[in-house]
């Protein structure tokens, strides 16, 4: 005798779901390139998460060469050094910089953020920019293929040579798009949670090759997989520029962008890059 009730509830739930789905309007992309005067970007004028301090986020574990010893606060590694340089530009002493852990997958969740900006090798794309703010880019990454020395994938001369390889990539990276559009492999790429799992899969021959950004590839072959070799590099579709991630509409975005632009024009950004990123001159370009 209670049978009609579940049907009634199910119908109601379905109706509610449809109403929610139907109710979504189009999203508007607001440009974050508002110009701002350097005078407005000082610790006493900027509305940071904690007044007078700069709260910077990254994921844990934080990987070399972007962070060293899994400790973003030591100022070592490309992104740690860049974050401190941005802080310095904006007038914050190193002791005023707080680091918090923000997993990549939650960094773009709606709602208030626990950080002022997030540096985590995050690629800027138009789709992503609908939901978060990105600063001006601080790095442009090439993609690289890593395979075990002596394997057939290691002897690839062109991207087409990798068509039949099983390729591993990390979730949430532009590497997967790069693989699907540039290599178009016959086997579906395997997609792992983090960089360590990708490396493990390569070591255990669960994949023939992995694709990652070039600095990571150089680090992997230098430290984690001595048997591995960088087969070559190629550029991701549309270029792969990394920016700091901020809450959508954050008042700090113009300031962080301004700081990065100044770091670039003063040559400091290039010095940080040279200091922490291995030079990739010898990695052949795959076409």
């Amino acid at each position, binding site marked *: *005798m*209670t049978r*009609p*009730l579940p049907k*009634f*509830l199910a119908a*109601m*739930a379905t109706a*509610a779901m449809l*109403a*929610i*789905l*139907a*109710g*979504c*309007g*189009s*999203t508007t992309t607001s440009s974050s390139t508002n110009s701002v005067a350097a005078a407005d970007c000082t610790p006493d004028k900027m509305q940071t998460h904690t007044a007078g301090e700069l709260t910077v986020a990254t994921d844990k574990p934080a990987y070399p060469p972007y962070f060293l010893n899994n400790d973003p606060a030591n100022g070592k590694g490309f992104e740690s050094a860049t974050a401190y340089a941005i802080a310095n530009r904006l007038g914050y002493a190193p002791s005023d910089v707080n680091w918090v852990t923000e997993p*990549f*997958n939650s960094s*773009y*969740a*709606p*709602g208030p953020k626990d950080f002022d900006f997030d540096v985590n090798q995050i690629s800027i*794309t138009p*789709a*992503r920019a*609908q*939901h*978060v703010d990105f600063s001006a880019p601080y790095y442009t990454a090439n993609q690289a293929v890593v395979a075990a020395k002596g394997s057939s994938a290691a002897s690839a001369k062109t991207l087409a040579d990798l068509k039949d390889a099983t390729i*591993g990539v990390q*979730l*949430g990276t*532009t590497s*997967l*798009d790069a693989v699907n559009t540039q290599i178009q492999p016959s086997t*579906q*790429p*395997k*997609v*792992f*949670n983090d960089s360590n*799992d990708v490396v*493990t*899969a390569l070591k*255990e*021959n*669960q*994949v023939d090759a992995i694709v990652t950004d070039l600095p990571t590839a150089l680090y992997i072959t230098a430290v984690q997989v001595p048997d591995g070799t960088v087969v070559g590099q190629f550029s991701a579709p549309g270029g792969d520029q990394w920016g700091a991630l901020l809450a*959508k509409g954050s008042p700090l975005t113009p300031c962080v962008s301004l700081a990065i632009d100044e770091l670039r024009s003063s040559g400091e950004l290039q010095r940080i890059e040279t200091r922490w990123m291995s030079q990739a001159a010898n990695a052949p370009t795959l076409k």
Partner: protein
Amino acid sequence: MTASEATLGRRAARETAKRRRARRGQAIAAVSSLIVIGGLIALAVTSPGWPTVRDTFFSWSAFKDSFPDVAKAFWLDIKMFCVIEAAVLVVGMVVALVRTSQAAALFPLRLLAAVFVDVFRGVPVILLVYLVGFGIPALELSGLPSDPIILGGVALTLSYSAYVAEVYRSGIASIHRGQRDAALAIGLTEGQALRHVILPQAVRRVGPPLLNDFIALQKDVALVSILGVVEAFRQAQIISSSTFNYTALVGAALLYLCVTIPLSRVLDRWGIGGRRV
């Protein structure tokens, strides 16, 4: 009015009253659900963050773009679920039979079965998937599978067999000893008594808890994604992390519901049937 007519009249009156009560119950249930569910929806929709949540979790355009890929990947979940479930039913039964065996000579096997259940039921499933998936290929033994779909399936089979073995065992233990004695008395052997008398009753009795484990397994198939397998959850994660829009994950959740809700209804019906017997 004869005595039997009076009885019929009273019965009819009782039926009418019962129907009236049922109708009133339904009306109250409908109104109260409308208030509660409507209130919850209103609360969500009027919250300050709702426009953002709507665009990031319930975007129709993102749903349209992502759903076909997620649905295609979901087919892999279904296939894995069917194969793993079949393996679990067999392995679980073997472990349960070993654990309920009486022969003194089988003690080492009983010990192994007990350890099997303790270990594989005691370790978080995600950890087991991870250890089997990355640990077995690390052995570099030839002949062992290295396909993450198979390894993930093995891990899930180990875990769920431990649960299902205990469900079977409770079913076997619930069959009265007299059933076995009666079977032996009419000339069946121990094995025949088990096969033809005890197990058919035991398995029937534990149907609902078994189906409960099926539903849990159907959802846990998504854990194989940590080994790099692109099934529905992973496909949805890929899309949502590349677009920063969670709608694809909502789509994946709907797909899981499409399987688990019908299974739950079967379970409900089975439960009602069980009470009637």
